[in-house]
């Protein structure tokens, strides 16, 4: 657990994001956003904007809308102060958005830096090559990339074998081998560098349409579409604004009727204090920051909607290998059967694995050597048989015609039968024994004779059980998919603490399980990398493809993990929830603030009506009360910018616990905080 978090934390800072000058740029942008054509997009702040203009007018002429009883100069000072505070309220909101966008832009710039335009070598139909800028490449065209060159666009390897340095986007320094045909290693991302050899690549994305480009557009925020939940919240805030507009506008004749006249500037102040400026000013910053957090995790999301959906996920469908268990299984024990000795089995096992370069194969060889096995033949004289998904076994053919095989127990049984050997129940006993330990049993045979079973031990990732426990507390179910047999799967599932598992799973099972969950109204998230996974990724509500996976998988998914770490799906659930919680918390806080603002402003501005006793905060004077409430109202926006950008700290608790906690902090806190803050400001400001 510790190691993984640490690694993830390190990765968060790669690629490096240039933050210098962020605030200077944000300060300028905040002024640009005062343009009414931009301001009109945020209904709450637009009202404050219009209010600022009107208070500016009554600063110039306090008697513009009616002769004021007070002498014009103090009135002018008050109106001027109100104007300045309102201006800053709007500006702070703009600033919050600009900072969020700026951080996104910085993130985008660092992503974009990987895409510095290069020259590409386009392969023409006649086989010759033509040099042209990478931006001129189109989907479907083929390019040749030589050692030392940048890959000009996202694509799929058609021919060649080369190692590619992907550190620019993944931060992983070890180069990756790319070759055509294989599921995992055939896709390349624009901006990575070929280190050795050369590749022929078919371009799969038009310029500006690659994953990175989409992410750039998303984190920059400017071209961000509002997510469904954000739209619903905007509606609520607009209705509240509308309500208070009516309340305040009708107050002018009402107050005049009861002979406690008030001024337009004061009514505008009341309006601004009551409408939900806090959340209205921070709403878009929260959304942009949410996208930005996803980007910092080195995950590319193709839409904000997908990030939001992460918070709603009910079921995670996870592959066992690589997500729940460490990718490589190691040989733990040899179990000889049918009267063979341990030494014999080790001997055969070693022989079967000499060409097996997988970690499993190497570990079998090592274990066999530890047990004293030696090669009794010349490597050069034998022929290796590679593992294939169809035969599910591998091995060697000796020069003398003996065939040694190791593989899935079923496959070996078939092999033995075809060689005329006979099978004993001892094999099944060993098979079951290994399965019950949660291991993968591999049978070893020589021609028709079974020698025994190798126990490959699966290692559950450290800390994964705790994470699943957290998910369960948040109401997220986990389903493990594995090609293992039922018994093995059950043991691993038990050990990892998943809620359900599907053994001997095929790619079709993946879609099946997703459909089944969705038919119960659940939102499903899954990870995948192979072409086989593409339909399931498309079917899932949140599909996270591995960057190392095929183009088909990446295109079907709505998110791509540049680090190819399937465990990140769990982090994404947290990010999605955090985004929603932050929005909810600041909305509750903003609305709860109204109580205090009411009690600060109403009694003082209508003190002529004799309701001064309602001034429970004991504010000095009507002027001081209004200015204090407005200053609080303005300052709370920059105060909460860090929270909006970082997000409310997420804790894996049940809904009830979360509600209790957040209501206490943001609801009750939202009621109390402004009482204290307004009183404090009233005490500090030098107004009689």
């Amino acid at each position, binding site marked *: 657990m510790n190691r993984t978090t640490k690694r993830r934390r390190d990765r968060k800072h790669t690629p490096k994001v240039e933050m210098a000058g962020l605030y200077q740029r944000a300060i300028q942008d905040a002024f640009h956003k005062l343009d009414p054509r931009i301001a009109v997009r945020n209904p709450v702040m637009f009202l404050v904007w219009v209010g600022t203009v009107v208070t500016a007018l009554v600063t110039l002429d306090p008697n513009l809308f009616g002769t004021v009883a007070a002498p014009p100069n103090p009135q002018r000072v008050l109106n001027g102060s109100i104007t300045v505070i309102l201006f800053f309220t709007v500006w702070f909101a703009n600033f919050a958005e600009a900072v969020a966008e700026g951080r996104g832009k910085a993130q985008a710039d660092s992503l974009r830096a990987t895409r510095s335009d290069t020259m590409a070598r386009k392969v023409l139909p006649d086989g010759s090559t033509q040099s042209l800028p990478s931006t001129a490449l189109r989907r479907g065209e083929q390019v040749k990339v030589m050692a030392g060159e940048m890959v000009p666009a996202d694509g799929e390897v058609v021919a060649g074998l080369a190692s590619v340095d992907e550190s620019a986007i993944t931060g992983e320094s070890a180069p990756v081998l790319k070759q055509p045909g294989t599921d995992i290693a055939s896709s390349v991302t624009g901006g990575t560098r070929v280190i050795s050899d050369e590749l022929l690549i078919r371009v799969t994305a038009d310029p500006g349409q690659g994953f990175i480009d989409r992410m750039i557009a998303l984190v920059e925020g400017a071209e961000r579409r509002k997510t*469904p939940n954000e739209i619903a919240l905007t509606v609520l805030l607009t209705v509240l604004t509308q309500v208070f507009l009516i309340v305040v506008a*009708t107050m*002018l004749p*009402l107050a005049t009727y009861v002979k406690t006249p008030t001024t337009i500037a004061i009514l505008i102040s009341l309006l601004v204090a009551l409408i939900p400026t806090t959340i209205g000013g921070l709403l878009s910053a929260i959304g942009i920051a949410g996208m930005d957090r996803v980007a910092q995790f080195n995950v590319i999301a193709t839409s904000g909607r997908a990030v939001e959906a992460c918070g709603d996920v*009910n079921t995670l469908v996870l592959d066992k290998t690589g997500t729940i268990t460490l990718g490589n299984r190691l040989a733990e024990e040899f179990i000889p059967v049918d009267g063979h000795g341990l030494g014999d089995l080790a001997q055969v096992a070693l022989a079967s694995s000499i060409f097996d370069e997988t970690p499993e194969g190497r570990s079998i060889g090592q274990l066999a050597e530890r047990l004293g096995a030696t090669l009794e033949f010349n490597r050069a004289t034998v022929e290796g048989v590679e593992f294939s998904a169809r035969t599910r076994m591998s091995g060697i053919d000796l020069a003398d015609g003996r065939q040694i095989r190791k593989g899935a127990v079923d496959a070996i049984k078939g092999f033995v039968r075809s060689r005329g050997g006979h099978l004993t129940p001892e094999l099944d006993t060993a098979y079951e024994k290994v399965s019950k330990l949660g291991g993968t049993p591999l049978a070893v045979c020589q021609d028709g004779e079974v020698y025994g079973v190798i126990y490959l031990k699966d290692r559950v990732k450290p800390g994964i059980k705790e994470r699943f426990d957290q998910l369960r*507390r948040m109401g*997220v179910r986990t389903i493990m998919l594995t090609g293992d047999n039922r018994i093995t799967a059950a043991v691993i599932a038990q050990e990892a603490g998943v809620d359900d598992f599907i053994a001997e799973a095929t790619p079709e099972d993946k879609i099946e399980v997703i459909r089944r969950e969705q038919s119960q109204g659940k939102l499903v998230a899954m990870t995948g990398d192979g072409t086989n996974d593409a339909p399931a990724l498309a079917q899932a509500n949140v599909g996270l493809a591995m960057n190392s996976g095929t183009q088909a998988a990446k295109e079907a998914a709505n998110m791509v993990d540049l680090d190819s770490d399937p465990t990140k799906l769990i982090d994404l659930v947290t990010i999605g929830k955090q985004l929603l919680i932050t929005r*909810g918390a600041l909305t509750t806080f903003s609305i709860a603030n109204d109580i205090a603002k009411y009690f600060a402003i109403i009694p003082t501005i209508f003190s002529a009506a004799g309701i001064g006793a*309602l001034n429970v905060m004991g504010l000095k004077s009507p002027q001081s009360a209004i200015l204090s409430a407005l200053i609080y109202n303005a300052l709370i926006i920059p105060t909460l910018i860090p929270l909006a950008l970082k997000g409310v700290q997420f804790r894996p608790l049940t*809904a009830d616990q979360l509600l209790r906690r957040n209501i206490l902090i943001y609801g009750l806190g939202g009621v109390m905080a402004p009482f204290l803050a307004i009183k404090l400001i009233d005490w500090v400001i030098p107004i009689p």
Partner: protein
Amino acid sequence: MLQGWIQIALTLLIILLLTPPLGGYMARVFSGSETRLDRLFIPLEQLIYRWGGMGSLVDMTGWQYIRAVLFSNLAMALLVFMVIMFQGLLPLNPTGLGSPTWDTALHTVISFVTNTDQQHYAGETTYSYLSQGLGLGFLFFTSAATGMAVAIAFIRGLTGRPLGNFYGDWTLAITRILLPISLVGAVILVAAGVPETLAAPVVVPTLEDATVQQAIALGPVAHFEIIKMLGENGGGFFASNSAHPFENPNGLTNLLQIVAMMAIPTALIYTYGIFANNRRQAWLIYAMVFGIYLGCIGVAAIAEYQGNPAVNALLGGPHPNLEGKEVRFGWAQSVLYAVTTTGTMCGAVNAMHDSFMPLGGAVLLTNLFLQIVWGGQGTGTAYLFAYLILAVFVTGLMVGRTPEFLGRKIEQREVVLTSLLILLVHPIAILIPAAVTLAFSEQLAGTSNPGFHGLSQVIYEYASAAANNGSGFEGLADSQPAPTALWWNLSTSVSLLAGRYIPMIALVLLADGMSRKPPVPMTAGTLRTDTGLFIGVTAGVILIMGALTFFPVLALGPIAEAFQIGGGL
């Protein structure tokens, strides 16, 4: 003092005990289960369906339901308008009353068809027995049944069922609930001394001076009275409503009237619990509303019990405020009645609300603003759930999921409809006309008291109209032939219609949309809406969003008045 509190407590206990049986019965009626009245009423209902050409009652879609509500209400309004305008030519008119002015008739019809029963007239001198008994009495049943049908459709939609058939529910509401209870209640009222006669007024010499003749108005009051209360109508047969000794002669009738007002709004919450199969939630909501209700009674009762400081100074000691109250009911029964009638949108009065202490008046106004302290016939319960949905949306995000209510996601459409429904209609229908009226107070208002109390009177009138309550802070010159009557009749008509039909349309659309959403399964990550915590949060949302909107007008009206007369707090 103690006696008064005991009266209040006993009345509330009766209502509490009545809730489960009545709520359960209503759930059985509207879910089509067997009830004991089946044998009696099924033939009658079949007859009604056949005559109405309704045939088989198919489930309606949202817009079909809305059309059914609007057209049926329009048709009834036209019918009653005709009856009223031609009452001079029609029978059952012993006092020979002519037609009222068109605006009075229009306002009356709109007011009664919207279950409001705001009266800008004196019943005994304006409308004939036919107009009252058959015209308005008819609307007593149908307007109440409309509200109930919409509430049932709303509950059905919320719990994922089809909305049902408006005409079917409407008929059932009348034949199975309103009619049987009214029959029993009317008999008890007659036994307790309420007149039920078609005879003309009795003319008698007065006790003080035998040469002076006084006409004592009579009429078919008892049956009118019970449905007036049970259906949250509130339109009095006589001008002084339930303060009149022939409408509400004694303690027994007063108790019966309070229980009748409360019966259906309280029971509907329980009915919801059965439909949603979550009685725990229903009781929690019930407890929340009961808590707000008790708080309202407490504030108003203390204000009335302490009395008017100015009067107390003259009398040389503390006395309850009895101005505008019937001595046979006293302060406690009057307060309980007033809080109940404004809370349940009944609008019948047994005391002058105008003469309540400012804080008592503020409580009554708050009831009108909130509309959920039990709330109107059917609509109140629906508003309650709209508030719940709003609370889910505001706070539900804080558990990190798209908010859900009863397993259905609250999205843009729900937010638009809910917030329109409970946040926007009221300020528009109350504050805007009130502002216009007070801006041109000399030409339009005709208030009996200027200043803070005048503001309260005007606000109350529009709040009563928009909330479909019907009671009044009397003292406005809103009856013909006053010059301001035309303005009052027309402007309140707009508030009446806006306060009734916009929310109803929104409710039906909301329920329709919710019923079509795929349900999301409950998990540990789902916000539970049946916990004390969440219901407490809802109470907070109701107070902040529902009540604070009107805090400025309360401050400039009753609260300022309370400070003005000193010691009112």
